């Protein structure tokens, strides 16, 4: 600071602004790698990432960023959902009216609603793909067993969110889809009717059902989702992303000793002090999260948002006539992700509708504790896991085929139709 010469007004303003900025962001805009890394670990939002990540994390063909896309979609759904909550009224005739108001009155209402619906469908689909990816790369094995369980729970919560949201427009499609869905739930032995009663808030789908589903959809399930997502990502950080070249096998735990961390604390790579971690990590394998990971993630986010916008502008979310309990469409179909289930129910209500799905869910949850063999984790379609992959792929194909049949090949009275006729 030169003395004797007064600083100009402009300079004083800039200095003042700089002070304001520094009170918010304690670190300046990072210019060097060190500053960037420091920013990563000291920021509230950014410290979900480590300062340095393994290089294979950047490879898109390993995970296809499916988990990230699912998370981004959840974010999109939350934002659009909150906006929609300003207009939506969860009471039967008004519910439908608010859908019409969104379509005709609210500025950008159509885009808002379409975004929400298509993002919801996309999320279910992406979460499913994510599960397939995790299986086919064997990433549920030790030490990631519990994360897989959390993931399965997340899948169920996603389906529940989509299902509860499906009813909210209160049109014929919504009403009868939920009728079918809750009727399938009623097939459960012993508790089936109670489950249905609990879901419907009564014996028929009416105002109580709508309110119940609304609260589930907007409060209870999103809260659970946020909790589970946090846990899920936390475990990813702690367990590390699978599939690295230096696939470290955790050291056998010593009784009472805290499990060893597989991550370093980022700055360590730059300092010359001795390492703290037990395992050896190859610094050549790692890159700075900022810019490499961060920028790629932001790109994926932008791509997802742009893609969802395009889809929302091109395809209108369906809205049929107002729900009419006396007029059943023929056929009444469940939401598409339950159509495979409905197809199964068509063959056998109890076995198809209850036993098989329950078995599948239980099998999924128990999977990592049944398949304890550690080999083959971290690679796509590892030959060591051929049997597991075949079984899983077969089940996936069956599920997809059943869903496709239910969507395209079933007409009135659930009779077989050829979709091109």
């Amino acid at each position, binding site marked *: 600071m030169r003395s004797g010469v007064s600083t100009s007004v402009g300079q004083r303003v800039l200095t003042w602004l700089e002070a304001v900025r520094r009170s918010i962001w304690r670190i300046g805009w990072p210019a060097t790698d060190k500053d960037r890394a420091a920013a990563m670990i000291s920021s509230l939002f950014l410290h979900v990432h480590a300062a340095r990540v393994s290089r294979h994390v950047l490879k898109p063909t390993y995970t296809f960023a499916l988990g990230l896309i699912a998370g981004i979609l959840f974010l999109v759904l939350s934002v659009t959902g909150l906006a929609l909550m300003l207009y939506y009224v969860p009471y039967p005739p008004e519910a439908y009216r608010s859908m019409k108001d969104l379509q005709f009155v609210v500025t950008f209402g159509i885009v808002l609603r379409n975004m929400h619906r298509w993002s919801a469908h996309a999320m279910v689909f992406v979460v499913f793909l994510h599960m397939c990816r995790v299986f086919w790369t064997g990433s549920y094995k030790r030490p990631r067993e519990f994360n897989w369980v959390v993931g399965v729970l997340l899948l169920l919560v996603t389906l529940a969110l989509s299902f509860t949201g499906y009813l909210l427009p209160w049109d014929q499609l919504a009403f009868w889809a939920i009728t079918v869905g809750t009727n399938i739930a009623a097939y459960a032995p012993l508790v089936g009717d109670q489950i249905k009663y609990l879901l419907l808030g009564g014996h028929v789908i009416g105002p109580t059902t709508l309110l119940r589903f609304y609260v589930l959809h907007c409060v209870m399930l999103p809260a659970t989702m946020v909790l589970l997502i946090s846990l899920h990502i936390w475990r990813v950080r702690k367990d590390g992303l699978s599939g690295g070249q230096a696939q470290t096998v955790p050291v056998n735990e010593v009784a009472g000793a805290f499990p060893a961390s597989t991550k370093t604390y980022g700055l360590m790579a730059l300092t010359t002090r001795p390492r703290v971690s037990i395992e050896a990590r190859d610094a050549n394998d790692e890159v700075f999260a900022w810019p490499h990971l961060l920028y790629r993630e932001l790109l994926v986010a932008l791509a997802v948002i742009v893609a969802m916008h395009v889809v929302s502008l091109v395809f209108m979310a369906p809205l049929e006539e107002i729900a009419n309990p006396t007029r059943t469409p023929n056929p009444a179909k469940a939401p598409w992700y339950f159509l495979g289930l409905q197809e199964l129910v068509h063959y056998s209500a109890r076995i198809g509708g209850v036993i098989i799905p329950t078995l599948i869910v239980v099998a999924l949850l128990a999977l990592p504790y049944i398949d304890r063999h550690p080999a083959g984790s971290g690679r796509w379609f590892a030959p060591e896991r051929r049997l597991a992959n075949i079984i899983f792929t077969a089940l996936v*194909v069956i599920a*997809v085929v059943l869903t*496709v049949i239910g*969507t*395209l090949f079933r007409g009135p009275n659930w009779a077989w139709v050829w*979709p*091109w006729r």
Partner: protein
Amino acid sequence: MTRVSITALLALLLSAACKKSSSPVPGEPMLNAIRAEQGGIGLSFSESQGKHLFLQYCATCHGDEGRGDGQNASNLKPPPPDLTVSRNDRDAASLRKVIAEGSAAIGRSPLSPPRGRSLSGEQIDDLVAYCQALARKKS
């Protein structure tokens, strides 16, 4: 490779659902029946209301089509004129005067009675419109 083939198969199946077949234009038999009965179109709403009034109040002497050939016309001296012939002195104002106040009000015989107290202003407007439409049809 397997991933690609699976997606391709899915895409193929989905596209099969989007085929549309061409179909003939659906008919409207009920509307056609009503329109056929209404016959000669070309009347505005006001004119068609006027036509109903004309048939009720005027056609006995002036004829169903206003040609002055109603069933009572032979008893009238002078006979009612042919309204389908357009004349210069048959503008809206004079038509309204005849209808509302009678033919005596425009210096003719008193045989066409005044309807000003039986019909509302809009009804007379409709009648005037129809009378003008009658003259228009001919030309």
